[in-house]
């Protein structure tokens, strides 16, 4: 007992999660992360625009494979993330509690809600197509079917306050439908996000599908919003001025933009809008022919 009380615990070096690996920032920069009372917690990587570009490359590389997996398989993997998180629940309760100044029970409720959120989106992967797609009864002899498809690489500016439930609530809908993500974690509370990378890495999620950067949204955001190989941006964690700046930059290649929306309660039913914001609709036409008398007209 006395031995354990004098044992020095081992700190974790928090690292980025990019392309399935855990690099430090190429810039060599870190910044101090402290808890709600100002106590030092860790030195987090202060990602650079080069890190952001590397993350886009990784996300693009992963997109074809991820979008091409069956919806069923994506659902299995998202559910696996929930299983892995459940097993590391205590770690996240501690990290979320420290990050957001929550009691153990309140932090526990937040982590539980985040786990359940993965389950919610795991179930959506193979249902969203039936809910937002379907056959179109065109006035002609054509088979006409609309199906949703992922838009591509999505930059996600994660919520600043809800460092974990908010984070999960913006990542999961992006990848559930087959997009890949470059995520800028909450600037002041990035540690739960960086730890989430460790969970994703052990959940059968292919490397590069989710890439997590810590640092300043105001520094990386403009580069990602202007990046020509990014297809969409979720501005959830951007303040009004930054959101406007990023939306202007995003117009350059007509990125799909999800503007920041006030969220009072991240535990509320998330609906489907965070998925549909990053979906394209593809409509396929094919002649049905007709049964002529001779049968030759088709």
């Amino acid at each position, binding site marked *: 007992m006395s031995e354990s009380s004098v044992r020095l615990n081992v700190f974790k070096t928090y690292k980025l999660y990019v392309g399935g690996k855990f690099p430090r920032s190429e810039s060599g920069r870190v910044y101090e992360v402290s808890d709600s009372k100002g106590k030092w917690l860790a030195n987090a990587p202060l990602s650079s625009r080069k890190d952001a570009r590397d993350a886009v490359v990784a996300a693009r590389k992963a997109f074809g494979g991820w979008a091409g997996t069956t*919806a*069923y398989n994506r*659902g*299995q993997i998202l*559910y696996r993330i929930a299983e892995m998180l459940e097993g590391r629940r205590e770690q996240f309760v501690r990290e979320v509690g420290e990050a957001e100044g929550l009691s153990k029970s309140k932090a526990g409720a937040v982590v539980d809600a985040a786990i*359940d959120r993965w*389950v*919610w989106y*795991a*179930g*959506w*992967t*193979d*249902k969203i*197509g*039936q*809910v937002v797609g379907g056959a179109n009864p065109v006035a002609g*002899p054509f*088979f006409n079917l609309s199906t949703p498809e992922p838009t591509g690489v999505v930059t996600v500016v994660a919520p600043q306050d809800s460092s974990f439930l908010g984070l999960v609530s913006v990542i999961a809908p992006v990848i559930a439908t087959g997009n890949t993500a470059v995520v800028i974690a909450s600037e002041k509370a990035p540690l739960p996000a960086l730890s989430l990378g460790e969970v994703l890495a052990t959940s059968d999620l292919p490397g590069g599908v989710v890439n997590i950067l810590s640092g300043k949204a105001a520094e990386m955001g403009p580069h990602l919003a202007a990046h020509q190989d990014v297809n969409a941006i979720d501005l959830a964690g951007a303040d009004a001025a930054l959101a406007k700046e990023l939306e202007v930059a995003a117009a350059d290649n007509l990125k799909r933009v999800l503007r920041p929306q006030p969220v009072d309660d991240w535990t509320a039913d998330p609906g*489907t809008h965070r998925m549909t914001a990053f979906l394209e609709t593809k409509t396929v036409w*094919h*002649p*049905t*022919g*007709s*049964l002529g*008398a*001779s*049968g030759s007209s*088709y």
Partner: protein
Amino acid sequence: MASLFEYAPAPESRSVVDIAPSYGLFIDGEFTDAADGKVFKTISPSSEEVLSEVAQAGAADVDRAVKAARKAFEKWSALPGSERAKYLFRIARIIQERSRELAVLETLDNGKPIKETRDADLPLVAAHFFYYAGWADKLDHAGYGANPRPLGVAGQVIPWNFPLLMLAWKIAPALATGNTVVLKPAETTPLSALFFADICRQAGLPKGVVNIIPGYGDAGAELVAHPDVNKVAFTGSTAVGKAIARQVAGTDKKVTLELGGKGANIVFDDAPIDQAVEGIVTGIFFNQGQVCCAGSRLLVQESIHDELLDSLKRRLSTLRLGDPLDKNTDIGAINSAEQLARITALAETGEAEGAERWSPACELPSAGYWFAPTLFTNVTQAHTVARDEIFGPVLSVLTFRTPDEAVAKANNSQYGLSAGIWTEKGSRILAVANKLRAGVVWANTFNKFDPTSPFGGYKESGFGREGGRHGLEAYLDV
């Protein structure tokens, strides 16, 4: 040729499954004896070996099971959808974990090849639970209005051809939508449903939400007739389906019926022959043809009839019939002596009515119930083998000259469950599909199933759909 390429036996091990000498009814979370103490034996149709002795439900047991389901309904239906979802996800995962055990069990009790239980039945069972798990907390998005409500107690009667898969089709959507269930498996294949009861226990499912009552048709009839059952779901013969439809008349029970079929598999002259032959074989010899959506009528365009039949016969000669646990077996045992007698009688009728019968050289094992793959050619639409559902490995071959004729012949049936179209031309596929009166149309493939895809029939193949968003409606008060 045969001796040179003889296969060594490759049996799947039976040791992964531990079958108890006896099983009770699973009511209110407990295994219990039948009220009148009756039991029946379940045997392995490939060897006639007795596998276990199972309690046989009677009227009193049906009543007890319905009461247990009613008692469990209030709490189960009041659970948040997200919590019901997590129970179903647990069940899906446990099925995945135990899938080899369940595959071997199903092969033993049903007689179908391990190749099928391992690669088709079990993956589909797990996927079905996984799929409907995800719906449990998304019912507001299913297109039935806000907060659709469950019906109550579902009485479900399933057949022996896909015992565990039919259980999944019935139980997964029922639980996802907040109903509780009483399920009667077929008397020849009760074991996988009883193993499922154990999976419910492992998943921590509340007592009474799922009740399993093995028994005969009388127990099924009692269940359907029980006044406290709100929903009847039946998969089986059209004759029994009609009896159920009469029985529920005048009540407010919601009913879905998935009944017989006589699927037409239409091959046009531009179809890739080898691919079509594989599809025809899958269509009628998958699960020994004991499939309601089997492609049991082959409609082949006259100009390619001889070429196609030559290829088909050559292919049938390579099918391997025998020990269902052997990984190389294509054709397993017929499920029961009764079914074998029915197939045998219908095939004899086919011959007597003048159709030409052909089977490949094929040695049948001495014990168990076996029927060689069989073709009938020179079949007309008036022949019994072209009209009646045989539910066995028997294919009737008819011809046509024009697409119109193909469609007319395909639709000339009391049934309307499935159909197949083989052609390289997309517009022909869609035009023909448009005219077919069938619930599932496969183009350049056959016997494909997926939990997201609605399945069910037109006409006397029943009504209601299972699978997909559509499958929720059967269990919602909408």
